């Protein structure tokens, strides 16, 4: 990463009370202390929810004083030790934002149902280079997802990331920049979308939705809708302790569970794109290694 201007990430916790003048004074002091310039990335943690107007004003202030563009600014809710600050939804409208859409490719096969265990590992073809971050094709290394090119990716520390439920609820989770960990059960009507991998410790209930730019792992029962590789990564996988999804999507492929009640196995399974369709196999670590290497 030489030759690229170094980026610094600075977390500023805004004071709990105080008017705009006090906040600006506080920020001015921080700007000098931390030597924030236009190459910095600033994460602002608010203890009390600020109005959109107040946020605009702060953004404008930082732009004027430090040349910081608003793209380099992010807002998160400050998490107190004891009690999480009231996380008020900004709008209660259901279905506000889903940043990912299914890539409009002509190979969607909505009528294809999930084929279980129909696998022939030798048929898995070599990586087709969909994942741009991948360096050498066919390299025998377990690297299912490389961090995308971008700012501050080399930093492995934990950063709070704001996650928006489409139902308008908002929560903050902790994870590194390419994977988030969600430690709760997603219930009907709740949805999560993230431009990276998503690991859920809990269930994904019917009517809930997980959309990920990378892979999805559910340490529990996946009964809702999961969309892995939402930006076209066909190597993304969906793994779950109990894989019973309403619908599975990987990149541009869609499949659903077969009609009628079928018994689902009581062991972890993984779904991936194989031979132009989504195929489910039991999750076997030894075979997994082979597959990832084969890719």
């Amino acid at each position, binding site marked *: 990463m030489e030759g690229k201007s170094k980026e610094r990430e600075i977390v500023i916790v805004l004071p709990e009370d105080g008017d705009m003048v006090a906040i600006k004074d506080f920020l001015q002091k921080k700007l000098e202390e931390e030597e924030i310039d236009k190459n910095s990335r600033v994460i602002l943690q608010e203890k009390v929810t600020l109005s959109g107007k107040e946020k605009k004003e702060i953004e404008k202030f930082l732009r004027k004083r430090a040349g910081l563009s608003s793209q380099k600014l992010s807002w998160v809710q400050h998490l107190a030790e004891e009690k999480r600050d009231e996380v008020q939804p900004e709008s209660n409208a259901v279905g506000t934002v889903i940043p990912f859409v299914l890539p409009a490719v002509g190979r969607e096969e909505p009528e294809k149902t999930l084929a279980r265990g129909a696998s022939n590992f030798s048929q898995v073809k070599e990586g087709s280079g969909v994942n741009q971050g991948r360096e050498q094709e066919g390299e025998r290394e377990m690297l299912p997802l490389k961090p995308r090119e971008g700012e501050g990716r080399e930093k492995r520390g934990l950063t709070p990331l704001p996650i928006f439920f489409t139902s308008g609820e908002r929560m903050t989770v902790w994870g590194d920049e390419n994977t988030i960990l969600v430690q709760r059960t997603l*219930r*009907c*009507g*709740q949805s999560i979308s993230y431009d990276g991998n998503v690991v859920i410790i809990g*269930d994904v209930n*019917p*009517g809930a939705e997980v959309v990920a730019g990378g892979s999805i792992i559910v340490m529990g*029962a996946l009964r809702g809708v999961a969309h892995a590789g939402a930006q076209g990564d066909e190597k993304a996988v969906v793994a779950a302790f109990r894989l019973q999804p309403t619908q599975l999507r990987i990149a541009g492929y869609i499949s659903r569970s077969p009609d009628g009640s079928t018994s689902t196995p009581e062991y972890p399974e993984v779904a991936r794109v194989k031979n132009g369709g989504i195929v489910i196999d039991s999750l076997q670590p030894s075979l997994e290694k082979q597959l990832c290497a084969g890719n």
Partner: protein
Amino acid sequence: MGEVIVITSGKGGVGKTTTTANIGTGLATMGYKVVLVDTDIGLRNLDVVLGLENRIVYDIVDVTKGNCKLRQALIKDKRFEGLHLLPAAQTKDKTAVSPEEMKALCAELKRDFDYVIIDCPAGIEQGFKNAIAGAEKAIVVTTPEVSAVRDADRIIGLLEAAELYQPKLIINRLRPKMVKRGDMMSIEDIIDILAVELIGVVPEDEYIVVSTNRGEPAILDPNSRAGQAYRNIARRITGEEVPFLNLEEEEGFMSKLKKIIGLSR
């Protein structure tokens, strides 16, 4: 200081109002001071189920708008000294009350009563938001149907978002024989999805229809199976440990039930 409990379900017709009336009556028979609040403005039912329809003068909207004193709007039950009803308005709609007004109202009722039980309307809109605004605890009612369980799941999510954690679950209208045949969702199936603590299972009972039409809660009939289940739920709300009803004579079902109780504790 009393406790404010909201009874909700998401889906309509699963028995929120019946549950509210029965639990409220049950708590009153045990000597507690109870007030039932009907928040289903525009579609009020609780007064009918309790047989108090003809006594309504003022309602919840009159109270929140300051047209009358709270004391004036509360209706005393005809059977039990400790039971009171705050009826909903019939001519207004859900927007006639705001969550802030509900919070203030609940805080006021809490001072005078041991239990404030709120009957929540169906749906997740304004009426639901009003009903849960002042609540400290929640009881979710569901029936063994996929649609009702789905809605209950959504409701539990919304309750958690409103910081009402760990709601209790009532499974209503269960038919043990159908469950045994595999034609109905079992208690385990429901708990598996919702993952909340069970506070009672109410068997399907024809007498509920009779009692609703007569305006006499089923809990008052010693022969009603549903009434027995509601009596147990009321006792569990007060903190008493009550074993779950044997819904069927066969041993198999009971052992299953025990497993559930063991799981949920």
